């Protein structure tokens, strides 16, 4: 695949310093570890759009979420039942709140400052189980939310956090993965065309625990989900996957941060997206920080975009910062490609009509991520949702 309509992989003005890494040329480094964090919205200056964390986002489209007053009341939530997964509302003062991470941008701090109670999803028990938590029809007034997903030591579950209907939502999601636990979290954005959703996810991974984190963004005018994972203890493992399909006028963004902070931790980041239609945009920023303590780290991150029409724009910015020389491997890849006309020709030369040939290729491209979710029913549902996106062209 070759040229994109537009693709950027340039260092930002705030990036400085150069360090070699194992995969090809030297990359600019953003000292992510030193980035400012606070739960208080007043600690952040008003958003102008020039800040490194906002420079790719249409900040004017959601000024109410970064600087307006938010409604912090409980969200309308429904959930499927599964033995070993309990939902409850916990007060702001609960000691679990703030254990996985702290806001790094003003929208997250605004949400943190105003949420009333947090939704706790508590996972226990070693049996595999799936629970889907749906937030539906949150309305068009700006709101704040806080969710804590806590997996007890050695527990196992797949938790789907799904959004449908209208929303103007700023939220924080904390994911606390206990020792030896194996947790999958799917954040599924299927909002209406006018919705805006700004989310920060913070995950803390304990010893020998594994998190599979999957961001699927399909619907919404502006959807920004920024997952940040702290591999805090030895043997932790994160598989960070993402899938997005950006249509005309949609802005889908994800800033992915993985902090290797203990020996023998592993991370794999794979985000794939398709862009179709005038003004379809996507942003992927992948920061990996391999700290001093993180000897024996094994890390790889990649972002791939498939451009289906003119008039789209995909920004893809990988960053890797390595503070220890003693690592197993670290690399990154980023590519934004046009739909390959030779593939199209090959399929058509076998009698397959053009539109079907296109669908076949795009489906194949995105299926790679879908197939890793590990829940047949959800995989099937997502494939048909992608199908619907493709039909909508």
């Amino acid at each position: 695949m070759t040229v994109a309509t537009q693709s950027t992989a340039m260092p930002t003005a705030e990036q400085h310093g150069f360090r070699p890494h194992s995969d090809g040329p030297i990359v600019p480094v953003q000292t992510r570890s030193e980035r400012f964090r606070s739960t208080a919205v007043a600690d952040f200056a008003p958003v102008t759009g020039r800040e490194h964390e906002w420079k790719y986002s249409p900040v004017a489209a959601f000024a109410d979420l970064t600087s307006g007053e938010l409604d912090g009341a409980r969200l309308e939530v429904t959930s499927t039942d599964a033995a070993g997964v309990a939902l409850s509302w916990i007060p702001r003062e609960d000691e679990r709140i703030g254990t996985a991470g702290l806001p790094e941008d003003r929208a997250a701090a605004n949400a943190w400052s105003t949420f009333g109670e947090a939704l706790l999803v508590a996972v226990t028990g070693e049996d595999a189980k799936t629970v889907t938590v749906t937030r539906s029809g949150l309305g068009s007034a700006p709101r704040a939310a806080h969710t804590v997903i806590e997996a007890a030591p050695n527990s196992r579950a797949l938790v789907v956090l799904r959004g449908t209907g209208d929303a103007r939502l700023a939220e924080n999601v904390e994911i606390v993965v206990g020792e030896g636990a194996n947790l999958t979290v799917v954040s599924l954005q299927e909002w209406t065309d006018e919705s805006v959703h700004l989310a920060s996810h913070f995950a803390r991974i304990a010893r020998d625990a594994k998190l599979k984190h999957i961001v699927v963004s399909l619907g919404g005018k502006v959807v920004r989900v920024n997952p940040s994972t702290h591999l805090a203890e030895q043997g932790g493992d994160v598989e960070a996957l993402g899938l997005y399909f950006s249509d005309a006028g949609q802005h889908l963004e994800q800033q992915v941060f993985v902090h290797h902070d203990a020996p023998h931790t592993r991370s794999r980041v794979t985000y794939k997206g398709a862009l179709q239609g005038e003004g379809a945009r996507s942003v992927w920023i992948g920061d990996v920080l391999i700290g001093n303590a993180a000897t024996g780290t094994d890390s790889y991150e990649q972002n791939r975009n498939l451009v289906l029409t003119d008039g789209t724009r995909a920004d893809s910015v990988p960053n890797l910062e390595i503070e220890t020389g003693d690592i197993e491997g670290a690399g990154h890849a980023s590519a934004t490609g046009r739909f390959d006309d030779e593939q199209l020709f090959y399929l058509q030369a076998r009698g397959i009509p053009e539109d079907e040939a296109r669908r076949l290729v795009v489906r194949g491209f995105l299926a790679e991520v879908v197939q890793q979710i590990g829940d047949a029913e959800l995989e099937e549902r997502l494939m048909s949702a992608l199908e619907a996106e493709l039909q909508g062209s």
Partner: protein
Amino acid sequence: MSVLEIKNLHVNVETDQGTREILRGVDLTINEGEIHAVMGPNGSGKSTLAYTIAGHPKYTVVEGEILLDGENVLEMSVDERARAGLFLAMQYPVEIPGVTVTNFLRTAKTAIDGQAPSIRSWVKDVRESMGNLRMDTAFAERNVNEGFSGGEKKRNEILQLELLKPRFAVLDETDSGLDVDALKVVSEGVNRAKANTGLGILLITHYTRILRYIKPDFVHVFVAGRIAEQGGPELADRLEEEGYDRYHVAEPAAQ
């Protein structure tokens, strides 16, 4: 009785340096069940002819016609041509990440027949054809041509030829890069397809060795964008001995 007619075909390609004339008046008629070998030096336009028949958008027909049983092929889209019964086995088959061979074959078969094949007989047909071509069944679950060796890609082309059952097939250097065993297996596949369906074949090759297994009825020498000479199978032997020198190929299609 099916017939594929190519009449006075002139084809240009757009390059960065401007328009280039590649085919300069090709005439060729292939009847059902006939095998026509086309041989010629590198760059003489053989693949251009193959791609033009299949309808690749890079090539512009400036003069002439291609008719399939009197129907104007040039007015058809690429997929319409395939559904009308034309098949191109490519010199360099394309990789399609994320699309398995199984899925691809079923989709193509459904498109060509206008209805999905009955599952039981289709699975059996695919398995049988793969067996005949000595393709491991594991290929069925791999992505189309992804990571296939050169020889495996060529077998995969012939697998499609056998399963899609076209009326006319253009085989563009299907023999290149094959060892002797693979060459035999692939040739058998082509001969089987011909025996089963009365396929007409345009076989593009540089080497006479494949002609030991696939016997041509006619041999055409392709030079500088047109057919310079034609004859029977004996012409191939002569080319093998003498090369293309006597056709003055010092300046091929280049200007």
